[in-house]
């Protein structure tokens, strides 16, 4: 037995050797980025349920990618970017062929099918619907205006992205980060700009985790002390029948208005109907717990798998991170400005701080409104009032995504 030859073979075939190969440094850098994301998720608790999965998917794919740049010929690779590039190439025989993915793909390729087909974001939306009480929105429907206004960042970031070198479809995917709604951002990006999925998902979830840091300075800058101290009256009680009718009315109306919103709005409202109708407790429980948890694992790891070194380490990723911050900031501004307008129209009955919750990110943004409100008036409880614009923002961002999908999806 040639011991020296065997050892040499083991060394040259190992992932360590590939660090020195062409482009190997990119994988090494991605492993460092994955570890930083893991630190942020675990230690700093930045959206840990998704960020830990995304970071670990990123870690796995960059290690497995080490073996060969042409991973299609490598059965050890967990994710094969070239298969997905072929899937999107109309001139390739494997164009839109899930069969090719199943035949040649690795574990993360197969899990990624659920992202590509738009299944996971919709199932997550079902869970969100099953967990959401739309009562505050039904009791005060004017919250919808704040939810609409808080989509300002989506369209401003879209405009900005389109002027700094991104295509229309890519700009739309970047803009939707401002909707502060992870599943919606992933859904739209997989449809319009799958090549940016990793960067957009990481930016969206990181900024959602940073909402308690991003929003308060903007809230303080745009409101007066007197406005922040406003105590809102309790909204009317909402009957069970109204809560049951709400998801049905919203589905019929919004899907008729914009059919491209059907997957997101349909699943969100189905989950909510499970919750409210009172006869499907088991389904509601499954949607908000077991199903949600399983899908979160699949979604996180497979989105992380798209963060391959040579694709992720691009100037565009930095631009996306910057534009994401712009989108979040302006969405907060939009919600607050309409909050101020409503405060003025109602002669001080509405605290404008609840407007910032219109950026979705349920319930984090509503909690921020509550915290800022209480800082200025210890007896002020804005949480339930802020939940109205907060859940309105979810519907608003789904409509924004539906519009962008309609314009750029065809």
């Amino acid at each position, binding site marked *: 037995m040639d011991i020296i030859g065997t050892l040499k073979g083991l060394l040259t075939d190992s992932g360590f050797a590939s660090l020195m190969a062409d482009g190997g440094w990119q994988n090494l850098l991605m492993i460092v980025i994955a570890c930083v994301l893991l630190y942020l998720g675990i230690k700093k608790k930045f959206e840990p349920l998704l960020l830990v999965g995304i970071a670990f998917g990123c870690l796995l794919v960059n290690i497995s990618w080490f073996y060969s740049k042409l991973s299609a010929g490598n059965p050890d690779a967990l994710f094969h970017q070239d298969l997905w590039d072929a899937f999107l190439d109309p001139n390739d025989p494997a164009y839109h062929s899930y069969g090719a993915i199943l035949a040649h793909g690795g574990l993360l390729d197969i899990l990624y099918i659920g992202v590509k087909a738009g299944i996971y974001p919709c199932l997550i939306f079902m869970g969100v619907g099953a967990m959401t009480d739309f009562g505050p929105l039904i009791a005060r429907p004017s919250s919808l205006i704040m939810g609409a206004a808080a989509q300002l960042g989506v369209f401003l970031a879209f405009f900005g992205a389109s002027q700094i070198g991104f295509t*229309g*479809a890519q700009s739309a995917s970047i803009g939707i980060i401002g909707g502060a709604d992870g599943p919606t951002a992933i859904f739209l990006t997989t449809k319009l700009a799958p090549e940016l999925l990793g960067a957009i998902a990481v930016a969206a979830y990181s900024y959602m985790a940073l909402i308690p840091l991003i929003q308060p300075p903007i809230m303080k800058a745009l409101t007066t002390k007197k406005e922040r101290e406003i105590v809102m009256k309790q909204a009317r009680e909402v009957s069970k029948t109204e809560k049951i009718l709400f998801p049905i009315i919203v589905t019929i109306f919004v899907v008729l*208005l914009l059919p491209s919103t059907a997957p997101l709005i349909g699943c969100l409202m189905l989950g909510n109907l499970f919750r409210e109708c009172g006869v499907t407790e088991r389904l509601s429980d499954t949607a908000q717990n077991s199903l949600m948890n399983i899908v979160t694992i699949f979604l996180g790891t497979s989105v992380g798998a798209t963060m391959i070194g040579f694709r992720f380490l691009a100037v565009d990723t930095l631009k996306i991170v910057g534009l994401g911050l712009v989108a979040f900031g302006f969405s907060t501004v939009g919600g607050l400005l309409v909050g101020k307008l409503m405060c003025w129209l109602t002669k001080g009955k509405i605290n404008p701080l609840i407007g910032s919750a219109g950026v979705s990110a349920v319930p984090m943004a509503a909690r921020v409104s509550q915290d800022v409100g209480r800082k200025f008036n210890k007896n002020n409880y804005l949480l339930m009032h802020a939940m109205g614009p907060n859940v309105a923002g979810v519907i608003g961002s789904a409509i924004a995504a539906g519009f962008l999908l309609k314009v750029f999806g065809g």
Partner: protein
Amino acid sequence: MNHVILDASFLRVGEAGLTGLLGYAVVFTGLCLLLALLLISGGIFKAKAKKAAAVVTPAEPTPAAEAKTAPGTAGEVKLYDVPDKEAAMIMAIVADKLQKPLNELRFISIKEVK
């Protein structure tokens, strides 16, 4: 560092601005129409609730008068949505817990808590 732009359809300033404005307007229109729908349905429910409250208020004493009495208690115990058998069981349990004979206890009413 490299760029990952794959699609070739770039937008001019005017096109992008118009698309952005139109999108924002669509979101506003959609949610404003939904607001109108919710205001209408909310109004209907509020009116119904008001009507129901107006009907219930004067009729409140009626159920007390109509409540049937438990058997074997000289017609003293009023039962609200409680069958005779369950009422007898409850009275027996209370008597047992208090260690008192049933005929020394006086039950006013038994009501099911929903």
